[in-house]
């Protein structure tokens, strides 16, 4: 189903300014279908800004943004979610006072259609859809490895489980691209290892993964290709081995002669 060398997402010449500050300038990259693509860079390099542009939270000032064959400009988050981009947040943003199950059910919103009349009349189509949503939500809860009562409030889950629940919620939108903003931040080595396995499973199921991460070891071990941002510019891109040896990347991370 997925052709290995087909481009899913292309950014060309993307720029974003906040007042006089250029958060991103002339960033171009392309993500292939079915790969795990890593985005790294020192703090303040513009990773999250880029991420927010891809997921519709910010609008880009320059350049173009092409996803799955369509060009998007000035698009709201929900349009991009419908197009097939799902995300998680750096600082977890679950629906804290809803149950774990309901959180995932909200994720199903974009792929279901039942409206006010469906809710009021509960005709067979609406009931079937609702049943299907619940089934899928239970399934995803298991899939990401949360073995807890489904009706536990999201905020009562442990930190690691909350991260997983966010991934489950994103997966419920049936994304083509799953964008994760520092999914292992604050996790211990064991938790990181099991999340890595989860991401590999997700990728194997045909979903492309975009990953922002500070944990260089994780990125190097997991990603097919990596882009490095520094001061809002892309300074390197390629397979982990190439990036690791790139002098510009070493300079950005360890300090050194500025070219």
């Amino acid at each position: 189903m997925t052709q290995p060398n087909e481009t899913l997402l292309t950014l060309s010449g993307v720029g974003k300014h906040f007042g006089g500050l250029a958060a991103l300038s002339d960033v171009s990259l392309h993500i292939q279908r079915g790969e795990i693509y890593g985005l790294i860079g020192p703090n303040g390099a513009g990773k999250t800004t880029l991420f927010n542009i891809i997921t519709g939270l910010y609008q880009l000032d320059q350049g173009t943004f092409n996803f799955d064959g369509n060009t998007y400009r000035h698009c709201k988050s929900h349009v991009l979610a419908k197009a097939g981009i799902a995300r998680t947040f750096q600082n977890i943003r679950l629906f804290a006072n809803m149950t774990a199950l309901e959180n995932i059910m909200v994720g199903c919103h974009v792929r279901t259609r039942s409206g006010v009349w469906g809710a009021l009349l509960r005709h067979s189509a609406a009931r079937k859809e609702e049943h299907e949503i619940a089934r899928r939500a239970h399934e995803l809860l298991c899939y990401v490895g949360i073995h807890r009562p489904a009706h536990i409030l999201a905020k009562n889950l442990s930190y690691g489980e909350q991260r997983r629940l966010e991934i489950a919620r994103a997966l419920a939108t049936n994304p083509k691209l799953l964008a994760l903003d520092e999914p292992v931040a604050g996790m211990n080595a064991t938790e990181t290892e099991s999340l890595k396995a989860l991401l590999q499973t997700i990728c194997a199921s045909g979903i492309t993964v975009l990953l922002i991460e500070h944990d260089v070891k994780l990125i190097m071990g997991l990603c097919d290709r990596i882009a490095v941002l520094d001061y809002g510019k892309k300074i390197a891109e390629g397979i982990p081995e190439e990036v690791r040896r790139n002098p510009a990347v070493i300079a950005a991370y360890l300090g050194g002669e500025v070219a």
Partner: protein
Amino acid sequence: MKLLTQPTKIAALILALLIFPFITNSLLGQGWLRIADFALLYIMLALGLNIVVGYAGLLDLGYIAFFAVGAYTYALLGSPQFGLHWPLWIVLPLGALLACGFGVLLGAPTLRLRGDYLAVVTLGFGEIIRIFMNNLNAPVNITNGPQGISMIDPLSIGEFSFGKTHDLLGLTFTPVHLHYYLFLGFTLLIIFVSLRLQDSRIGRAWMAIREDEVAASAMGINTRNVKLLAFAMGATFGGISGGLFAGFQGFVSPESFSLMESIMILCMVVLGGMGNISGVVLGGVLLVILPEAFRHGAGPLQQALFGKIVLDPESLRMLMFGLALILVMLWRPAGLWPSTQRRRELMPDESVAHQEQETVYDAAK
């Protein structure tokens, strides 16, 4: 162990509600049935506001405006004001539809606002509607200004008028009694609609917006449409209640739609238990019944205790109302009858508490 099944309970409750007027009539007299009628109107309003505030988390301080729209629609189309006497089945839906339209009209420009800012704008909207009603008597007299519109047609379906006393099966039904049944019917309908919406895709989308709008949008929820839907649904309920109010009262004037009323309805929602239908109903009942009981009881009580009226019952009523609000907010911040979710928020699950203790224990080892 369950002794009664859900349908039996509901049937018993409805039966009790149907018999209720006969009991109050024989024990307390017609006056209290009239208060029950008003309680039902307020419950409808509170349930409407619950959709906006309780589900979608949009603080609306001008909700009474939709009640006003419904009431004035009925008053203008069913009174000697324009000589129009349209039937109920046209006027009431029309009032609801107009209120719904105003709901969208208010919702559209306030979509970006949240919390305090939204509250201020909606408060202004409520006042605008009231002031309009107050001033639309010149140059063309539409609303009759502060004098209000009187001699409004009583609610009637075909030949059956709710404004007359009817004898049926050897029982006498006074207008107040008949209105009670009519309002009860509408209230049950609105409760049904609220319940169905609560556990639906739409309901979940509302709650997601209440919890985190950015995340909701990232999950593919069209926040604009879903918020407008909440405003429209809430306003529709307000419009229905308004139409019924005008027909019941026979008179409307801008005075009935002051800011205080909006706040009162908000209090019903907050005191009862935001987002929980039973709680909102309880809030509505208490906030209508208690002040009335107080009004009737405070004077004689003071006479008995001090031999004279020390405090005017009316001002004492507001004092007590404020006190009750503070006490509830201190001791039951989620409302008197919170939804299971809110209750869980405040009282963590047994399992969670247990688990936390274990974690502490592990850490201590």
